[in-house]
């Protein structure tokens, strides 16, 4: 028994030491490496779910929503989970197709990643995000999916905010649209934490949605959800509430915008060859945009829930008039006679007397080539005032020719002044206005330097064409081919020369001069007010959804006209007679000038091979202008007969004059008989009041 006892002592020691080993190991695992396992536990046990912030609304100057949110039940599919299934999710898609009543092929298309050779609909966002495939299902459908999760792995239905456009296609290009965030953008956006993907991460892709994206977006919240080993949520561990985006208040007046769009549509209907139109309404005193319209337009709602290939092609197709493109800020057109405000100003700065008398013959010889007045009619000896009212061309040809000669003609002096180009730049032409919208064009103010640059870039092609000609054109039209060959020969030989004809064309806004409708409006705004050239702004203020002001958006001043007040008033007064006694008298016949006097300038710009571009640039009331309205009809014909009537309709709507029915008070409501869109006859002066509960007050 003694030896047995000894062996039991061994057993005792063995038991103690093994348990001691366990205790040491537990110390190591739980105390020393504890924090490491706590982290690992958090990782396995929880999923971070991004709670999207409600995107801010975009309101008009009266607080009417231009873009708002509606809640919708959105069905999303997690593709990464589908492909892990045995049949790569085929059965799930079939069941989903039965619930959504959409063919499986459609669902499959929406789940593809966009890329070269993939037609829309396809998924432009990150492949790791759940892909929304239906953005408005019924509660019943959503429950069918949510209650049978084992049949729909990777499919979710949740309430999301979807953009809604109460005014339909109104101001579509200004508002812009949203698209899912791409993987690259997602990678660039730090701070959300890895793994924090969300199928509703969208980015503004155009218009205000893009420029004010940061403010509108808000800050997404984070919900750390505890899950079991099957991935089923069993509780919320941590919740950071999302901060909704700011509300963007614009200076757009939805009614005025509507009036402008209807005027453009009417103008295009009555001009048979018109292929596009743009309208701009500015408050000239501060550079705020009251309306910015481009026709044809489209309904931005088509972007939500995945755009189809047909819709997408239509947005960009030339035959449909490229409705995606805002002609008001991106379209570049020759301004025609509306440009003469710049040419007159250039003459004054170049020493031509303000009160001088100028001969306006029917034709003026620029070098050896005659340049004619409109229809070749001579108007006699005129003041500059009458020259503008009657839109005489030859006075400007002569001035441009004389200036060109003073600059040295074909062989320019090193100090060529180019007064007309310099003045055009002072009016803001040739550079972007800097409006708070993306993709603006800068227009073009040609000159000697520009010509030289262009020639350097194109002479090789021109010289080759001068030799080979245009055999591909010759079959259809031998005369056109011959013309093109001669042009190529001239361009090759002396394309770098700023010729007298170029200068003459420049003076009446023809030739190579291109402006955007917005630039023209901005230039007129500067001329008829204090001479400050402003960078227009659509955004007026950013507010928290409860009405607290975040910041005001002030249109910056980007230049000053080199004109005295007397000179500006002189030009303004001349323009004030155009609708009553000048080229726009026909369009404004019967307009109650005693109530609201309108000033303006017509423009009819010739485009080679196309119908003329019709312009009317205007302001009202003439004594203290509160509105600048510019309308451009591409291929619209005469400015006085095509663009000016559209402008008249806009003023009728704004002031409630004439027989024009006013814009409906509510979207979709029937138009009511003539009532002023702006009964005060001036743009809104105060920001709309947003109450703490988010409603718009009186």
């Amino acid at each position, binding site marked *: 028994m003694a030896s047995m006892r000894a062996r039991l002592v061994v057993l005792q020691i*063995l038991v103690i030491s093994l348990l001691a080993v366990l205790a040491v190991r*537990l110390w190591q695992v739980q105390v020393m490496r504890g924090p490491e396992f706590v982290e690992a536990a958090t990782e396995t046990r929880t999923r971070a779910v991004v709670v999207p912030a409600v995107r801010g609304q975009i309101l008009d100057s009266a607080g009417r929503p231009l873009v708002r949110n509606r809640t919708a039940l959105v069905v999303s599919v997690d593709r990464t989970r589908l492909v892990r299934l045995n049949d790569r999710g085929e059965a799930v898609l079939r069941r989903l197709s039965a619930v959504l009543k959409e063919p499986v092929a459609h669902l499959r298309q929406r789940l593809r990643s966009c890329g070269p050779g993939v037609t829309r609909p396809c998924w432009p966002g990150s492949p790791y995000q759940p892909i929304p495939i239906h953005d408005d299902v019924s509660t019943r459908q959503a429950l069918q999916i949510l209650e049978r999760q084992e049949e729909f792995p990777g499919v979710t239905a949740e309430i999301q905010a979807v953009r809604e456009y109460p005014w339909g296609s109104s101001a579509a290009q200004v508002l812009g649209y949203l698209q899912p965030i791409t993987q690259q953008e997602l990678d660039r956006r730090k701070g959300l934490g890895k793994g924090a993907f969300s199928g509703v991460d969208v980015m503004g892709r155009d218009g205000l949605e893009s420029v004010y994206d940061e403010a509108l977006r808000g800050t997404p919240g984070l919900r750390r959800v505890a899950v079991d080993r099957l991935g089923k949520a069993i509780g919320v561990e941590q919740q950071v509430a999302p901060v909704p985006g700011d509300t963007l208040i614009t200076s757009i007046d939805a009614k005025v915008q509507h009036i402008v769009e209807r005027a453009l549509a009417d103008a295009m209907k009555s001009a048979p060859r018109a292929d596009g139109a743009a309208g701009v309404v500015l408050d000239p005193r501060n550079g705020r945009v009251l309306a910015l319209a481009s026709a044809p337009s489209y309904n931005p709602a088509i972007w939500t829930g995945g755009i189809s290939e047909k819709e997408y092609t239509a947005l960009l197709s030339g035959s449909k008039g490229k409705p995606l493109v805002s002609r008001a800020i991106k379209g570049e057109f020759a301004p025609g006679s509306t440009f003469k405000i710049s040419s007159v100003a250039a003459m004054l700065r170049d020493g031509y007397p303000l009160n001088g008398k100028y001969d306006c013959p029917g034709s003026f010889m620029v070098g050896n080539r005659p340049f004619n007045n409109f229809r070749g009619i001579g108007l006699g000896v005129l003041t500059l005032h009458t020259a503008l009212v009657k839109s005489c061309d030859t006075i400007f040809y002569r001035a441009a020719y004389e200036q060109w000669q003073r600059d040295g003609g074909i062989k320019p002096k090193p100090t060529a002044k180019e007064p007309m180009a310099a003045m055009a730049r002072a009016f803001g032409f040739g550079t972007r206005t800097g409006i708070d919208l993306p993709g603006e064009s800068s227009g073009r103010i040609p000159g000697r330097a520009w010509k030289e640059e262009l020639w350097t870039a194109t002479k090789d092609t021109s010289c080759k064409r001068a030799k080979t000609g245009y055999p591909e054109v010759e079959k259809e039209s031998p005369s056109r081919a011959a013309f093109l060959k001669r042009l190529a020969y001239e361009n090759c030989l002396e394309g770098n020369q700023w010729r007298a004809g170029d200068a003459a064309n420049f003076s009446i806004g023809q030739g190579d001069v291109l402006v955007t409708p917005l630039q023209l409006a901005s230039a007129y705004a500067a001329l008829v007010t204090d001479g400050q050239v402003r960078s227009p702004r659509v955004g007026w203020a950013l507010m928290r959804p409860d009405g607290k002001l975040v910041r005001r958006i002030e249109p910056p001043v980007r230049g000053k006209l080199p004109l005295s007040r007397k000179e500006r008033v002189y030009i303004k007064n001349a323009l004030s007679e155009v609708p009553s006694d000048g080229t726009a008298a026909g369009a404004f016949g019967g307009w109650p000038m005693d109530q609201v006097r309108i000033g303006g300038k017509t423009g009819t710009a010739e485009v080679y091979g196309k119908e003329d571009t019709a312009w009317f640039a205007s302001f009202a009331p003439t004594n203290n202008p509160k509105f600048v309205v510019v309308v451009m009809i591409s291929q619209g014909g005469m400015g006085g007969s095509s663009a000016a009537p559209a402008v008249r309709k806009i003023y009728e709507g704004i002031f409630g004059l004439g027989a024009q029915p006013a814009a409906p008070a509510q979207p979709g409501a029937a138009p009511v008989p003539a009532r002023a869109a702006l009964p005060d006859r001036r743009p809104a002066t105060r920001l709309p009041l947003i109450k703490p509960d988010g409603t718009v007050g009186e």
Partner: protein
Amino acid sequence: MDRASVMRRRSLARRAVDPSSPVWRMDGVLLVAVAALCVIGTMLVWSSTRTWAPGATGLVKKHLLNVAIGAALLSAAAMVDHRWLRIYAPIIYLVTLGGLVLVITPVGSTINGSHSWIVLGGGFAVQPSEFAKVGLVLLLAMLLAQPVEGTGRPRGLDVVFALLATGIAVGLVLLQPDLGTAMVLVVITMGALVIGGVRKRLVVLLALAALAAAAAVWFLDLLEPYQVQRFTAFLTPSTDPRGVGYNSTQALIAIGSGEIFGKGLFEGGQTTGRFVPEQHTDFIFTVAGEEFGFLGSVTVVALLGVVLLRGVRIAQQCEDRFGTLVAGTLVCWLGFQTFVNIGMTVGMMPITGLPLPFVSYGGTATFANMMAIGLLQAIHIRERPY
């Protein structure tokens, strides 16, 4: 009339309440430690089953029933004179062996991948291999308790019988297959042989033979693939954290995330999320680790230590060879199971399906463990031959 016959005439209940009854001479420390482990085990079973088992309390009611039956078995075993058991040991062994044979016949059922069960109906099932541990302990003690005169070593023939009895039991258990129980049986035999005083040479030889057998089993592909994977996964747990290494990785995460003080009962996220498989049975210790922290898990280890060391003490104090052998071998069994079970949850041991004594959910295991404690008490009560 001798004392024993007087006692036999009185009812069991009357005997139990008699102040002179042997019940009052039981090892109190051992009883308290086992009771404490049962209480902790009940809480852990509650925590790990409340999320999925029907009813608000999960499997707690059934577990408490098991513990109650176990307590009854403990008391009953404690009443029995262990020397009486020595006489009946072969029969007990044969009965348990019969249970193992019954499992292999169509009467047996497969639960959780191992064919180790006999379903009784009404939601109850027994695992005969647990009782086989008790039967083998008693048989081996009986065989080895009779030493060769003057040497203190068991007779050669008895050793051969002992090995034969072990071989049959291990063979039947491996047929199920239940590797864990087979290992426990081997350890029981090794313990009995060493405590019984078999020559060291023979012990070493047997150990080598066991290793050789293990090697043969390994190289002859007699193991199920999942068993091989469990062993390799133990050696390199991180190679496949989603596959076979999943269990040990998740067990480590659950225990480690408890840190010093634990997350509190029912507060363990890993337990609530059911990340550790078989958490109420084989991996119950992970619940203790996560919810009670280092302090709680070390308490469990300490309580088990108390049980084991009290067992060693009982073996040391017993004055007859059979009692010492039974007590010592029981300690080897429970100690091995404790170390392997906790060891596998903290990544020190390969994963084998062994429950943690007194803590894990599982009826038959609870019954067998409680019977083992009852035997220890019986030996304690009658440590001196009358």
